[in-house]
């Protein structure tokens, strides 16, 4: 290459042409680049499009593209169009951090919507802190965290697990007296179960009436576990199972329940990670009556939900695709971010972070969610029962929106902690020692 260029440069005509081309190119770049930078605001989407989490996360990428598209049709934000930057962290936790860095420093995105598993969130946290950017995290999680750069639009334990237990203790839920806490062996179920165990004991449930089991990821031989549950449940007191079983291990679990004849009327199972999408492909007849606790169900009747489902079906060009809770979380989070940017009149992360607390945006169940000072939001809690067709029937809901609590009030280590990024400027303020830092 060098040689050829040299040969070309030796000829005078060619040299002139080359100079002209270089100048025009340089001019072109100079005129084009500031213009494009002014015209669009970049929005990063950090969801796995391959690997084990692709099943769940691809949908979230699609819903973000839809929301950005709709916002652009309304004229964008601050008079500029939004531009989606999609990367694929491939269900690989360290790769999440790399891709986050790429989005923020190379693509200069104003905000990132992404992550599903807690471990992927933990892996990108240092990057967002170091490069001072904003992450919207849309999935229900175990709590015990509040970061300045992260906004949690999914449910904290007090917005999902605790109301579900309250429902089961009520008359309509069957006045449950014994509890099986069944989960996959990793951080979310373990922390959630710790919170639940402390809560149940505070409600007067005795040690012998709580059974906690963990199984590995992708577990498929549920025979012993289900017969243990069956035995525990037939000892005279009304029993329920609180399931934090993750992903596809749920399918053989429910299959074994059905095979061994455990009916929802005898021992109901309430799940926190099972949605209509997972159930859609399976025979749900034997599962009728089992429960799920979410902040959103597709079957909820609200005009805003109906129009969301309609535009989702049009966008994805498939009438059968279901909508789910993390999709709603992105809907709320995206609208909050748009409002905050308009309030701050800038996409500068510091100004947007300061503007976000207090912002209100509609949720899909007909209410209005609010971003709190601890970077969590207010949400209603719904309990749904599985119907014969795999959809959920809402059988109970909280009267008001429940504010998300970053630090559980039922764990000894965290009940004195408070997160407040407005007054205290701290994610873990200790109300006893009056100090920030746990």
């Amino acid at each position, binding site marked *: 290459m060098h040689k050829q260029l040299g040969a070309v440069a030796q000829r005078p005509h060619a040299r002139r042409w080359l100079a002209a081309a270089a100048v025009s190119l340089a001019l072109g770049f100079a005129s084009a680049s500031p213009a494009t930078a002014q015209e669009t605001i970049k929005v990063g989407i950090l969801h796995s499009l*391959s690997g084990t989490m692709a099943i769940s996360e691809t949908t979230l990428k699609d819903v973000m593209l839809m929301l950005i598209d709709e916002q652009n049709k309304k004229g964008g934000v601050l008079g500029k169009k939004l531009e989606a930057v999609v990367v694929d962290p491939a269900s690989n936790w360290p790769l999440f951090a790399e891709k986050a860095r790429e989005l923020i420093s190379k693509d200069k995105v104003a905000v990132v919507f992404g992550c599903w598993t807690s471990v992927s969130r933990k892996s990108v946290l240092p990057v967002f802190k170091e490069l001072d950017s904003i992450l919207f995290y849309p999935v229900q999680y175990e709590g015990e965290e509040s970061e300045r750069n992260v906004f949690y639009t999914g449910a904290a334990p007090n917005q999902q697990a605790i109301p579900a237990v309250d429902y089961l203790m009520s008359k309509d839920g069957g006045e449950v007296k014994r509890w099986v806490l069944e989960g996959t062996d990793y951080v979310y179920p373990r922390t959630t179960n710790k919170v639940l165990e402390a809560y149940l004991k505070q409600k007067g449930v005795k040690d012998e009436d709580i059974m906690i089991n963990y199984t590995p990821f992708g577990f498929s031989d549920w025979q012993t576990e289900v017969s243990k549950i069956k035995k525990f449940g037939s000892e005279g007191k009304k029993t329920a199972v609180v399931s934090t079983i993750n992903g596809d291990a749920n399918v053989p679990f429910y299959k074994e329940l059905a095979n061994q*004849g455990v009916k929802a009327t005898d021992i109901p199972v309430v799940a926190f990670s099972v949605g209509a999408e997972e159930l859609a492909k399976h025979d749900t007849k034997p599962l009728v009556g089992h429960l799920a606790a979410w902040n959103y169900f597709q079957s909820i009747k609200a005009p805003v939900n109906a129009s969301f489902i309609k535009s989702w079906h049009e966008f994805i060009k498939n009438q059968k695709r279901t909508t789910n809770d993390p999709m709603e979380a992105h809907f709320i989070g995206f609208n909050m971010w748009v409002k905050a940017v308009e309030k701050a009149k800038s996409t500068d992360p510091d100004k947007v972070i300061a503007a976000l607390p207090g912002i209100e945006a509609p949720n899909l169940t007909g209410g209005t969610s609010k971003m709190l000072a601890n970077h969590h939001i207010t949400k209603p809690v719904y309990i749904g029962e599985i119907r014969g067709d795999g959809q959920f029937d809402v059988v109970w809901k909280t009267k008001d929106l429940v504010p998300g609590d970053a630090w559980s009030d039922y764990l000894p280590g965290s009940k004195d902690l408070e997160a407040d990024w407005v007054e205290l400027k701290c994610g873990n303020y200790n109300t006893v020692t009056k100090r920030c830092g746990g």
Partner: protein
Amino acid sequence: MRAVCGRLIALTLLFGLLVLGAAAARAGSFEDALAGFTTDSFSDTAEAVEAVATTGSPLAAPLLEALRESRLIFSAKDKKVFIKTRDGELLDAATTNPVSDAPPDDLETVRINNRLRNLIDAALGSLTLMAPDANRRFDAAQAVFKSRDAGSLPALDKALAAETNPRVKKAMQEARAAIVLNSSDASEADKIAAIAVARERGDQDALALLQGLPANVPMEVHKAARAASERIQNDLARWNAVQNAWYGLSLGSVLLLAAIGLAITFGVMGVINMAHGEMVMLGAYTTFVVQEVIRQNYPGLFDLSLAAAIPLAFLVSGAVGILIERTVIQFLYGRPLETLLATWGLSLILQQAVRATFGPTNKEVGNPSWMSGAFDLGGITITYNRLWIICFTLVVFAALLAMLRFTRLGLEMRAVTQNRTMAAAMGIRTARIDALTFGLGSGIAGIAGVALSQIDNVSPNLGQGYIIDSFMVVVFGGVGNLWGTLVGAFTLGIANKFLEPYAGAVLAKIAILVLIILFIQKRPRGMFALKGRAVEA
């Protein structure tokens, strides 16, 4: 005479009027009760269920059944309730006459929750105790046993006196015992008789009944209950051990099925085949494709889909196995490290290929009806899918053993693996035999995939979950020995299932791994080491 006649007629008329009046009054209250279904509130529906059940109307049972099956429809505007028959016809719930004119446009299904389902079951229980169908009477008795509702006692006693079917009669006696033990005003003798009935039933429910006895019962009753519950507990503990052994056999059969193909490729040929799990996965996907084809073209033959899938899975996985052997592995014999890496790469390629073809989401493989459900054998529950898998595994094992022992191909396989040069000198085409042996091992892995598709998720990652377990079984059992694989699989399965109730699923698995490591330290060649000239140094 005439006067008597006249008086008789008058009496009959009067009686008829009375009956009519009573019926009208009843029908009235039945209709009133229906109003509770039109408010879309769970507590109103609950009251309506109880009100309908107490009217004793013959319409109550079909109405409650419709409610339980979500076939009860209401119109909030017109305050009317309808029953949708199983054929989709709309009936007026108050009269069960078909609806002739256009129904209201705001029809909605009456929603129920678990509490209501229990209420409906209890109510239906006392209403259907006299049903003509024995199975329904049995279900009714079970429902009464569960609800222990003292209000059902008169109906139960009447049904019990008329019952002829021994199975239903026993269930009714148990239901009666449950009510008697639960009530405070039953006589001492009655209660002691009831304890005997519960002792006879002898399961966890009976135990719960005896242990939940009210505290204020007479001394005699208390003693009898304690003795009975102790004996039930002893029985249950024994059955529990049997149940664990059964689960162990079931887990062992799954391990054996996954490992048996590897026992040939790794055990007999000495090839470390990391793509073995993907052969299993291919078998499972073959099952999925077969089921899709059958579902679309011959829905009536769905129950036979597995029978069709078994030979196809064998052929698909076997063909892929032969292809792999011819293109990759044959150049790597005697170089275990390269084989390991090459087959590991192959496993990733196969996974990605399947992901690209079928998509990343799990595929649903249906259970044929003969593989769903369970039956009770004494005190243990046996699920059909596990039972069939155990039988299937043993058949596959026996067939493979017979093939190796009695066929020409089996003889040549054994000859080549024991002494390659001598076999070649005798005129056996060793390269062909290598390919066929590898194909056989892969094909059997494919068959395993058919069985595993029934109990596990069919996803591109299916094989990864079994590869470690398969190597564990083969190494533990003794490399090169099929019987060792059999004993190894069942030993590990049973040990795992006896540990699981105490240690939990995660710890049990860790404990098994540690035990194997210790065992291999002591006996590096596994339980049944091959002896003699065949063993390479």
